[in-house]
C-alpha cells in the first residue's frame, strides 16, 4: 500500500474523474513525442490510481512515466471532465521524491536516460559540477535544473549568463509619478541571470507608465523547476520566502515578465503550499490576486503602443507560452503587438502548442523535447517572420535552440522587449 499521507491522497477525488476517453491523446505534447500510452495524461492518471491502490510501486517504471510530462496543462484545458492531470503528476512526483529521496530520484533519472545521448547525461553532470559553473546562481535557483552544462552541450545552443545580474544593477525602489501604482517586480532567474534585457525592458515600460517600481533584492527563484522534479520542500521554502519579500513591498501589483514565474505565483503556490495552512493559504491567495503579467498590466494601465513609434519595421509571429495560455492570457500580448507601429503580426500554425521545454523535461528527455519543438520551428519558418515574440524566457531559450539548430536566423524576443524598443529614445 501507498504510505499514509502520500501526496497522491491530495488528488484522490480528482483521480476518479478520469473516464479514460482518450481525448488527451490529441493534445498532449509528450504523447506526440513518445507515442506510448504511459506518456499521455490518462495513462498517468491510471498509473496514479494503481499506485494509490498499491498495485504498483513508486519504482523506475512509475518514475519514467511521470517524468514524461511538461506540465503544460494542455490536457486539462481540453479534457471533457477537466481532470487536473498536471496536479496529479506533481503529486506523483512529490510521492516519488518522498519515497525514493531526491538523490536516488536523480539516480533513477540516470537509469531512465541511460540509453540516451551523452548530451542528456550532461544534465546530470550539471548537478554535480554545477557549483563550479553557477557560482553566481543560488543553490535553490531553477536555473540549476534548467541548464545542463554548456560544454557538454553538443549541438545544443544555450544562451550566455549575463555578466552582471539584473538585480545587482538597480536600486530596490525607483520612484514614479504620483497617482500611479506601486508595482513590485518579480524578476525571475532567467531575466536576472540570462536574459537581463527582459528585465530592463520591463522596468523601462513600467517607468514609462509612471509606476513606482520596487525590485526586492531578496527575491528568490519561483521554484517551478524544482516542482517539476517533485522537490516540494524546496518549493514550499521558496514560496514562503517570496511571499514575505513581496508582501513587504506593499505594492498594488506584483508584475512578472516570465510566464513560468507567473504560473508559480498564481496557481502553484496556492495549490501545493497553501493547502496545509489556512493562514498561509489566505496570504498566498492575496499574492496571487496581485500578481499580473507585464503585458496585461500595460493594457490595464492604458499603455498605448501607437503613441510610441520609431524603430525598424518587423514581421512578427507570436508563440503562446503554456503558462500564459492556461491562465487565459492570449489576446493581450497580441493586441499590444498589433497596435505597435511598424509591427506586422502574422499567426503561425499551432501558436498555442507547447514549445517542448517543460522545465526539466527538456533536460531529461532532450530528444523528445526537440521533437516537440521541431513542429514549432517549422511553423515559425512557414510564417516568414523576422522575429518570434513570446512572453516566457524559458520558451525563448527553447525556441532559440530549435531555430539555431535549424540554421534559422529568425530573432527570438520577448513581447516586452519589442514594446520597450519603441518607447526608448
Amino acid at each position, binding site marked *: 500500500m501507498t504510505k499514509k499521507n502520500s501526496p497522491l491522497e491530495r488528488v484522490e477525488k480528482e483521480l476518479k474523474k478520469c473516464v479514460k476517453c*482518450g481525448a488527451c491523446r490529441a493534445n498532449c505534447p509528450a504523447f506526440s513525442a513518445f507515442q506510448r500510452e504511459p506518456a499521455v495524461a490518462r495513462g498517468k492518471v*491510471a*498509473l496514479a490510481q494503481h499506485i494509490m491502490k498499491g498495485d504498483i510501486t513508486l519504482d523506475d517504471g512509475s518514475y519514467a512515466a511521470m517524468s514524461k510530462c511538461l506540465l503544460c496543462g494542455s490536457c486539462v484545458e481540453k479534457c471533457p471532465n477537466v481532470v487536473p492531470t498536471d496536479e496529479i503528476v506533481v503529486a506523483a512526483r512529490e510521492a516519488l521524491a518522498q519515497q525514493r529521496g531526491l538523490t536516488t530520484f536523480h539516480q533513477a533519472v540516470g537509469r531512465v536516460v541511460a540509453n540516451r545521448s551523452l548530451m542528456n547525461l550532461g544534465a546530470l553532470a550539471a548537478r554535480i559540477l554545477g557549483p563550479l559553473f553557477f557560482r553566481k546562481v543560488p543553490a535553490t535557483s531553477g536555473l540549476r535544473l534548467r541548464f545542463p552544462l554548456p560544454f557538454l552541450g553538443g549541438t545544443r545552443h544555450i544562451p550566455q549568463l549575463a555578466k552582471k545580474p539584473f538585480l545587482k544593477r538597480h536600486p530596490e525602489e525607483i520612484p514614479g509619478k504620483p497617482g500611479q501604482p506601486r508595482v513590485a517586480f518579480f524578476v525571475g532567474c532567467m531575466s536576472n541571470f540570462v536574459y537581463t534585457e527582459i528585465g530592463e525592458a520591463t522596468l523601462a515600460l513600467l517607468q514609462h507608465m509612471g509606476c513606482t517600481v520596487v525590485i526586492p533584492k531578496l527575491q528568490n527563484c519561483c521554484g517551478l523547476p524544482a516542482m517539476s522534479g517533485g522537490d516540494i520542500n524546496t518549493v514550499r521554502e521558496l514560496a514562503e520566502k517570496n511571499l514575505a519579500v513581496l508582501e513587504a513591498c506593499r505594492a498594488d501589483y506584483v508584475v512578472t515578465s516570465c510566464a513560468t514565474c507567473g504560473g508559480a505565483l498564481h496557481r502553484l503556490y496556492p495549490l501545493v503550499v497553501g493547502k496545509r495552512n489556512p493562514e498561509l493559504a489566505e496570504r498566498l491567495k492575496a499574492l496571487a490576486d496581485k500578481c499580473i503579467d507585464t503585458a496585461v498590466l500595460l493594457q490595464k494601465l492604458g499603455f498605448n503602443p501607437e503613441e510610441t513609434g520609431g524603430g525598424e519595421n518587423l514581421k512578427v509571429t507570436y508563440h503562446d507560452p503554456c503558462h500564459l495560455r492556461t491562465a487565459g492570457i492570449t489576446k493581450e500580448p497580441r493586441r499590444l503587438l498589433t497596435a505597435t507601429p511598424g509591427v506586422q503580426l502574422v499567426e503561425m500554425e499551432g501558436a498555442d502548442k507547447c514549445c517542448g521545454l517543460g522545465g526539466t523535461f527538456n533536460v531529461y528527455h532532450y530528444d523528445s523535447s526537440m521533437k516537440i519543438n521541431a513542429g514549432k520551428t517549422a511553423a515559425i519558418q512557414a510564417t516568414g517572420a523576422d522575429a518570434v515574440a513570446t512572453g516566457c524566457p524559458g520558451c525563448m531559450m527553447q525556441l532559440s535552440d530549435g531555430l539555431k539548430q535549424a540554421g534559422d536566423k529568425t530573432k527570438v524576443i520577448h513581447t516586452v522587449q519589442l514594446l520597450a524598443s519603441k518607447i526608448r529614445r
Partner: protein
Amino acid sequence: MLKPQVMEQLKKIVGAENFATGAQELICYGYDATQMEFLPDCVVHPADANEVSQILKLANVEKFPVFPRGAGSGFTGGALPKGGGVVLVTTRMNKILRIDTDNLVAEVEPGVVTEQFQIEVEKLGLFYPPDPASLKFSTLGGNVAECAGGPRAVKYGVTKDFVMGLEVVVPTGEIIRTGGETVKGVVGYDLTKLLCGSEGTLGIITKIIFKLLPYPAAKKTMLTVFDSIDGAAQAVSTIIKGKIIPTTLEFMDHATLTCVDRRFNLGLPAEGRAVLLIEVDGDPDLIEKQAGAIHDLIQPLGLVQFRVAKNAAESEELWRVRRLVSPSLRDVNPDKFNEDIVVPRSKVPDVIRKIEVIQQRYDIPIVNFGHAGDGNIHVNIMIDKSQAGQEEKAHQAIKEVFQAALDLGGTMSGEHGVGLAKQPYIPLELSAEQIGVMQGIKRALDPNNILNPGKMFPA
C-alpha cells in the same frame, strides 16, 4: 500467461523498442473508455502487415490470444485484453499512403488519426465525412473495425459506406486484400463489408482504401428550440418526410439542456423543452432554400426559437451547445451508461416517449441526446455506483431501453458496437440461428480462436 520463450520471439519480431512487459505499460494498455480494465501479458507495436502476420502465425502455434488496439477510445471494450494475452497496437502504422484526386480515393494505414486524415484531404478540396465524436484522437483502423458513425451520418452514412477496400491480416496470419478502388466490383464475397464493424474478431486491418467526396461548397447551421420533446422528435421525421436530408440533425432533450445551461448559461428560452441542431450543406443557393423550407416545416410543431448562424464563428457558437453536453452530464450523477440505440427515423417520438416511461418506472435520471436525424439516440443512464442497488437498476433499465428500440424495429447499437459491454444483451436482438451463422464465420476464419476472443458473442 505466455511462456518466456514466446515473449522472446514476439520481442524479436517487433524489436525491443516496440515490445513491453513493464507493469506500467500493461496497465496503460488494459483500459478503454468503458472504464473496464484487464491486464495483458505484453504489448507489441508492430511496424507493418508482415510483422502482424508473424505475430498471428505464432499465436496459432502457441495458442495465445491477440487483442488489436487503435487509440483505445472505444465505448464497449472491443480492444480490452480480457483473460490476458498480447495487446497489438496499430498506431505505428500511421501513414497516409496516397490521396488520389483523379479517382477520389485515398489509401491509409490504420493508425492514422481520423481528424488528421480529414485535414489532409480537405487541403485538396476533398471530404471524408464520417465524424465520430472521438475523431480528434481515434484511429481510422478503429473506426473501420467498429464501424464508427457520427452526426453527419444522416446525409453521408457511416464509416463502412466509405471503405472500398482493405489489406487485412486474417487470424491465421495470411495477408489478403479485399475489395479494391473501383466503384463497382462483384467478384467474390464482399469481405470488406464483413470486416467493417467486425470489432477486430475477423482480422487485423493494415491498410484501408477510402472513397472521398468533393468538399461541400457551403453549410448553414440552425439551432431550433421546441416547447415539447414531442415537437422536436416530430420535427425530425417531418423534415425527412419533407424530402430534405440535412447533414446533421442533432437532438437534445430537456434534461440535457438543463445540464448544459446550469454550467454554461446558454440563455435558451425558458419554455424550451428540446433542441434540434440542424446543419445543411451544399450549393449556397440550395442550402438557403433548404433552411427556409425547414423553418416552414417545423414552425407548427411548437417552435419557440430558430437561430441561423450567419458565419463560421456563429456556427461554431451553436455547435458549442452540443459539444458541452458530454462534460455537463456528470453534474446529474457521477456514473453513466452511455447507450446508442437506433430506431427508424419516424419512430424517434415513440422511443423518446417509451424511455420517459422507463425513467419514471426506475426513478433514475435518463438523459437523451444524439443523432436523431438517423434515428440514433444516445441514451445516458445516470447513476451513482456508490449507492447500493443503483447499478442493478441501471442494468434493468438498459435492458428495457434496448427492448423498446427493438420493438420499434430498431437496434441496440448504432455506433459503439458490442464488445464486452453489450454482450449480455445480444440474444435480445439476434436469434440463435443468426448467432450460429456468425460464429460459423468466426470459426472458419479463426479456428484456434486467437483473435480478440471472448468478444461480441456470449460464451
